[in-house]
């Protein structure tokens, strides 16, 4: 068989140019038995790790694999033809990275600006293949070139210098002479490392052109090398290739003309086919193999390169780490250090020493220490709350270093799950910080490690169903309407497919030819990388220059950089990464701590002993609005069933309401066993296959039911006898849900082997279902434990300092599941007095006030007022003095623009002046406009004489409430639904209390009314949609409806979701008909059977005098004041 190596591969990481994933190329190359395959994307290395990972994975299955070559296709702005470059060794690779980074740093975002001079400066060790352009295409760099001229980029600092336009155009024409000169120029710098690449794409004059290049190459004395200059791995991708070309060019297929390729020849071809195409020049084929042999670089040569800053002079990192650990042990375990702890610490330290990763721990410790203590020279006392999450909580070393807050010894967590010798992967520590102060931590990292060694990881933004279908539909010339219809059926922006059902949901026929083609191309396009963006907090740190490991691009924010690889890529090449994440709840806890300190003079911190029974009592009653993690509908309905009594119960609570255990059907068995209804037993293999108790150590803590991610992994190894390599593969397949195909290959193995070994098929199936569910939403035990502690801390605050809790929650918005309206309502139900926003009492933030009864009241802040700006609030507070007497007073002293005053008046913030919204608004209208001529500016308000006016009509309560909702998204007066009660009563629609009130509650509700419905009753209930939630991929939707009597939890089964998708996704006010379902713990659900969108009723409510004019299509109704349009805030949706 002909030996052939393809060196010209453009993957889909050359955005909208390539039409196949890197891994598809690698697999196809392996299938064809290539000698080697080289990935060379346009001025980027973004896709090479994907290829590398696929390559590594295939290594485990087969010995004969094409060699993977890492390279790039340099596209120049000075008219030089494209050049493929391949580094021969690690130093040369470093130079390629530097070259690309340089080009990116001086270019606008997402572009790369390179000239031939740049290449000549960095060419050492790079193999160079000149790709002569085809005169009928490849004029693609012209756009960027124009940009260079227009934006003056060329002359900018570090820019390539001005390039004469003429020389650009000559070079672009690629006359043979020009190419010959270029080859000679390159050859002078890089003797022995220059090639001329030739392709045969069946353009009619292939032979003629080939002869030209043969002569040119001969004269320049460089070898010819064959490449098919591929854009996709199989010819079937031509259609997608055409579509992405059109997306790139912004044209439809019908307009595309010759912008798309004439044929489908730019795919990987079998070596035999290549040999036939180059039958007249077999030496060009043979050259590919020689070329590949020259390359000795592999991505495996990158890896551990940890910073050594934190290590003091004269000590090894390991010594320093040990010092810190023992020091920390004395802090964590005051008194005598238990022997068990000492043993575990020693064991961990030994493993760390063996793996030489002490610097990793020291670096993370260094960052955490900054958050905790601040930099000494700054003398900042204000500390930033932080807590490690994820598997780091398995490590006692992390606990003693203060990185995590969970004692793994006490929790019985295993270090091996964090770092293991077998996995040969660096540990992965993620640390949560207060989300509002994460930036300080990031700045510290830059200060400490320098911009040349620290950068953010990338996030590859992929095409999601919605974005894909929009763009594809446009290319096919479909109207926006149809594209929107197609996209409308897609839930959220996530998901990985576009089903026929979704197409039909958009009222379109999936069998229509055009629609079918759109759908086909969309399906292929989904998952394609679209652009690179910076990761929120994934930092990459190196000891040497980072830009010699990976190309670095400038981020949007000044002085920020991010690398070209995402988290998975970084894992794959084993670089040091630490996640600096922002967690809203930490901000909220910090704010609550501060309020408690200020108003109640108590000092609290995260290191609580989680054993106060009152806290658990509260949680058992599902009184959990605002509490971290357990506030969702699903969690709140679980709490009464779980009856948590200690921290470990919370760990399980956090982990159990997740797609994994739910899809695996593990929830109910666990609850039954917990309640003692079912006996605890452990599935076992048949006798000849092993000990019957082999699963007891794995499942003991969770009563024989696998609930955590690592239990599932352990099952694979113990019960299905996965080798550690296989288990690793399974773990990776779980981690990347994009690899939809790969997980199924494990399924047969997993289920098959378990059955073979005598396990029940049903159990095996469920275990695997759970693994699938874990996909992207799995919780390992350690992670759940870290979160459980925050559950406890936030619940503790809610229980003992409810006012501070509500206040801190509101000040940390947006976060959590509930809108401010629900938080306020919950606070009032806990007897907290909530006071309206007021110009004389409110600050920007929500604040606490003495309520005169020895407790604290919550004063709403100006941040709750829609459209009011923080700078206005600051000025308002600063100039307040004793108090403001009139509207004019506020205008004069705080110098607020009229717009701000109108907002304040509309929001009814002048109550302390004994004026309601109507009267103040009438007063505000009288003030001069902001754009009054300077001449009149001095005669501001004070000049206006007092006026005696007739009183305005009294504002009805419903109108006040509606205005409250419009301005604050909540009302302290009443619930909107109160005003629709009469209407719904006449229709026989029940209130939330009627449907799901507590039957046993004493006293009943305020009116002394008992709820009407019992388990199994049919009922209809109306309410404002608070939240919509679709956990995992189960297809069930949970909706929370709210009215003046309480809330009702609605469950919509998947069948109905399809039928009522529009209502579910769009409505603000719903009437749901269905069956009432009561659990034994008193949790009530309304299982939907029919759903009606009644949002229009809210608009009717805004017709405040109910004899609405019959003919309103003319003036006013069409030009609503903008505020009138949105009567009720959008619900919060979670996917």
């Amino acid at each position, binding site marked *: 068989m002909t030996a052939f190596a393809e060196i010209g591969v453009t993957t889909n990481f050359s955005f909208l140019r390539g039409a196949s994933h890197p891994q598809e190329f690698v697999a196809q190359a392996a299938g064809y038995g290539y000698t080697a395959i080289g990935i060379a994307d346009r001025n980027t290395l973004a896709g090479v790790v994907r290829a590398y990972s696929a390559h590594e994975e295939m290594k485990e299955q087969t010995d004969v694999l094409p060699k993977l070559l890492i390279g790039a296709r340099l596209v120049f702005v000075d008219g030089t033809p494209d050049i493929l470059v391949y580094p021969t060794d690690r130093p040369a690779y470093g130079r390629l990275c530097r070259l690309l980074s340089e080009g990116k740093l001086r270019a606008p975002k997402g572009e790369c600006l390179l000239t031939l001079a740049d290449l000549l400066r960095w060419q050492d060790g790079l193999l160079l293949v000149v790709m002569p352009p085809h*005169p*009928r295409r490849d004029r693609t760099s012209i756009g960027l070139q124009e940009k260079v001229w227009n934006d003056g980029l060329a002359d900018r600092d570090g820019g390539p210098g001005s390039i004469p336009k003429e020389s650009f155009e000559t070079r672009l024409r690629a006359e043979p002479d020009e190419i010959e000169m270029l080859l000679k120029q390159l050859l002078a710098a890089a003797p022995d490392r220059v090639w001329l690449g030739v392709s045969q*794409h*069946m*353009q*009619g*004059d292939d*032979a*003629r052109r080939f002869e030209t290049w043969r002569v040119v190459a001969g004269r320049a004395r460089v070898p010819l090398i064959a490449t098919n200059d591929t854009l996709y791995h199989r*010819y079937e991708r*031509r*259609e997608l290739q*055409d579509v992405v070309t059109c997306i790139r060019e912004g044209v439809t*297929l*019908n*307009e*595309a*003309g*010759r*912008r798309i390729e*004439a*044929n*489908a*020849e730019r795919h990987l071809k079998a070596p035999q086919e290549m040999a036939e195409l180059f039958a007249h020049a077999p030496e060009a084929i043979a050259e590919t193999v020689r070329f590949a042999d020259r390359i000795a670089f592999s991505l495996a040569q990158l890896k551990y390169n940890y910073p050594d800053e934190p290590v003091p002079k004269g000590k090894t990192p390991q010594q320093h780490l040990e010092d810190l650990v023992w020091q920390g042990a004395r802090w964590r375990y005051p008194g005598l250090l238990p022997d068990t702890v000492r043993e575990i610490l020693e064991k961990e330290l030994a493993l760390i020493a063996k793996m030489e990763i002490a610097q990793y721990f020291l670096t993370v410790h260094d960052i955490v220490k900054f958050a905790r203590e601040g930099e000494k020279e700054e003398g900042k006392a204000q500390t930033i709350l932080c807590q490690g999450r994820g598997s780091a909580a398995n490590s006692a070393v992390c606990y003693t270093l203060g990185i995590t807050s969970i004692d793994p010894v006490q929790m019985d967590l295993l270090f091996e799950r964090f770092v293991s010798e077998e996995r040969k992967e660096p540990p992965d520590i993620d640390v949560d910080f207060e989300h509002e102060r994460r930036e300080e931590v990031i700045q510290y990292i830059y200060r400490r490690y320098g911009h040349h060694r620290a950068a953010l990881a990338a996030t590859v933004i992929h095409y999601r169903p919605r974005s894909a279908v929009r763009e594809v539909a446009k290319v*096919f010339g479909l109207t926006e309407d149809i594209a929107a219809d197609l996209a409308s059926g897609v839930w959220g922006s996530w998901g990985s497919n576009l089903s026929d059902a979704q197409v039909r949901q958009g009222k379109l026929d999936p069998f229509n*030819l055009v629609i079918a*083609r759109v759908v086909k191309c969309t399906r292929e396009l989904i998952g394609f990388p679209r652009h690179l963006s910076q990761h929120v907090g994934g930092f990459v740190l190196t000891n040497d220059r980072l830009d010699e490991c990976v190309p670095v691009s400038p981020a949007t924010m000044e002085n920020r950089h991010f690398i070209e690889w995402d988290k998975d890529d970084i894992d794959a090449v084993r670089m040091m990464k630490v996640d600096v994440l922002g967690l809203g709840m930490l901000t909220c806890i910090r704010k609550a701590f501060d309020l408690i300190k200020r108003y109640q003079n108590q000092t609290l911190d995260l290191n609580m002993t989680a054993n106060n029974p009152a806290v658990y009592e509260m949680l058992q009653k599902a009184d959990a609005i605002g509490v971290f993690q357990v506030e969702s509908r699903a969690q709140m309905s679980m709490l009464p069933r779980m009856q948590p009594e200690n921290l470990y119960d919370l760990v399980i609570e956090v982990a159990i309401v997740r797609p994994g255990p739910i899809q695996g059907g593990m929830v109910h068995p666990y609850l039954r066993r917990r309640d003692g209804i079912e006996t605890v037993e452990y599935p076992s293999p048949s006798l000849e296959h092993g000990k019957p108790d082999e699963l007891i150590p794995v499942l003991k803590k969770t009563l024989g039911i696998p609930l955590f991610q690592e239990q599932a992994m352990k099952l694979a190894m113990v019960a299905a006898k996965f080798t550690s390599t296989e288990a690793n593969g399974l773990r990776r397949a779980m981690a990347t849900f994009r690899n939809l195909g790969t997980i199924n290959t494990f399924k047969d193995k997993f289920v098959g082997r378990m059955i073979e070994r005598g396990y029940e098929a049903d159990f095996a199936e469920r275990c695997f279902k759970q693994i699938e569910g874990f996909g992207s939403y799995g919780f390992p035990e350690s992670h759940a434990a870290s979160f459980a502690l925050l559950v406890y801390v936030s619940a503790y605050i809610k229980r003992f300092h409810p006012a501070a809790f509500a206040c801190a929650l509101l000040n940390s918005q947006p976060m959590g599941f509930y809108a401010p309206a629900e938080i306020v309502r919950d606070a009032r139900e806990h007897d907290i007095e909530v006071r309206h926003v007021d110009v004389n009492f409110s600050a920007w933030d929500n604040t606490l006030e003495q309520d005169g009864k020895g407790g604290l009241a919550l004063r709403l802040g100006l941040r709750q007022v829609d459209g009011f700006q923080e700078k206005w609030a600051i000025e308002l507070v600063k100039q307040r003095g004793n108090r403001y007497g009139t509207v004019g007073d506020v205008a004069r002293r705080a110098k607020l623009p009229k717009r701000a005053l109108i907002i304040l008046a*509309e929001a009814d913030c002048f109550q302390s002046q004994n004026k309601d*919204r*109507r009267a103040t*608004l*009438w007063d505000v*209208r*009288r003030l001069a406009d902001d754009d009054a001529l300077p001449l009149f500016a001095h005669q501001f308000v004070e000049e*206006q004489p007092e*006026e005696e*006016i*007739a009183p*305005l*009509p*009294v*504002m009805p309560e419903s109108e006040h409430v509606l*205005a409250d909702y419009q301005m604050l998204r909540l009302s302290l007066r009443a619930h909107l639904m109160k005003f629709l009660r009469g209407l719904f009563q006449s229709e026989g629609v029940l209130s939330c209390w009627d449907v799901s009130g507590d039957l046993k509650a004493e006293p009943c509700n305020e009116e002394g009314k008992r709820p009407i419905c019992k388990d199994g009753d049919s009922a209809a209930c109306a309410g404002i949609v608070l939240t919509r939630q679709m956990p995992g991929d189960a297809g069930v939707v949970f909706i929370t409806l709210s009215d003046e009597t309480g809330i009702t939890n609605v469950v919509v089964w998947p069948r109905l979701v399809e039928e009522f998708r529009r209502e579910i996704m769009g409505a603000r006010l719903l009437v749901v008909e269905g069956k009432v379902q009561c659990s034994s713990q008193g949790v009530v659900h309304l299982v939907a059977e029919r759903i009606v969108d009644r949002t229009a009723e809210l608009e009717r409510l805004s017709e*405040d*005098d109910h004899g609405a*004019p019959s*003919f*309103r299509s*003319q*003036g*006013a*109704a069409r*030009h*609503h*004041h903008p*505020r*009138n349009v949105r009567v009720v805030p959008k619900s919060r949706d979670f996917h």
Partner: protein
Amino acid sequence: MLPALKAVTANEQADLKLLGRIADWCERFTPFVALDPPRGLLLDVTGATHLFGGEQAMLGRICANLEGQGFAVRGGMAGSALAARALARYRSGSVAAPGDEAKAIAGLPVEALLLDPVTTHAFRRAGLKRVDQVAGRDRRELTSRFGARMVFTLDSALGATEAPILPRAPLPDYRAERNFPEPVMTEDVIRATLTELASSLCEILEKRGEGARCLEAAFFRADGIVRRIAVETGTPVRDPAIIERLFRERLDALADPLDPGFGYDLIRLSASRAERAEAGVADFDADLNAKREIRFLIDRLAARFGAQRILAFQPNDTHIPEYAFAAVPAQQIQETRIAWEKIRRPGEAPRRPLRLLTKPEPVSLLRAIPGSNAPHMRWRHAQRSVTHAEGPERIAMEWWRHQDPQPTRDYHRIEDAEGRRSWIFREGIPDREDFSAQWRIQGMFA
């Protein structure tokens, strides 16, 4: 929701045009008709009501008549335009007696005043939701908040002040017309009139720096019949001589010549579409002048034979040879950016044949190309031996235009023993596409 409901995209221009037509029709009641877009008309019927049997009767007649034409109509009548507008919208069919305006609109919602949305919103927020509530406020109080204009509007709606109805302004249009006290019938006079109108029209165009792309001559016969003749041009013109010549061509070529009947009492020449045109400075560039001459020739030919019959080739941007050009009306030819490919290197044979067959015709090849000893090609019963061949040029069909997969073509340029060169292709890629490999000839190079 409503299966019978048909949704149509709004076309504001068309609506406005229609409104203008209704206004035309309304001129039979009063010459003072004003547009109140998007869908209102204001008629000043002062002094005209008695002709139609009084106010109520007149309003009823107008509404009924328009309804009969298929429009949904709401109408009101009052002593002030604003009051009438309010009544039409909120209490259709009612007439406010003079001096009763305030009373008539008192109970209407404040929106009936048709103020700007911010002001309307402010009134509603203040609880002043009916017209009388606003009307009842102190004028100084209102002026200090909403300005004098708003108070003026309010008072004119209430009938306290006068706001006149401005009749429709004539549309900015290029037209010239000539009235004849005595109807004219002779051709000489008609032609002379056209010449005269053409020069005055061109004068107006000149002033605005525009030229006409579309011209219309309207001949109003004394008995009410109107004959309209239109000509189009490829470039904007404002040369009277050219216009006159175009109409002459057109009139001469008319299948049914003008029939003056009892004579024309009005002839109007108008430019219904005008575009910006450069001043007609004489060009010294011979090439440009030649081009212009060609365009005038095209216009004249088109005026005589019809635009659809004067065609020119225009390149199409596509890989598919038979679609790479199209014959379109010569007047519509655009100087497209897409030029024919000019990639032929000096000394190379052309890539595309000089002549394409209307339809590729099957040929049989006795040996594959490129073969060794001269393969034979049989076409139209003649056999030729192929001496040279170059290819393939592989062109895939535009998949999105076809229902079923189309065969990819492999084109070859071949030369036979007599030196004839032709362009042949084979359909379908063996082993990849499911077509029997058929050879066809599509064109000849020379």
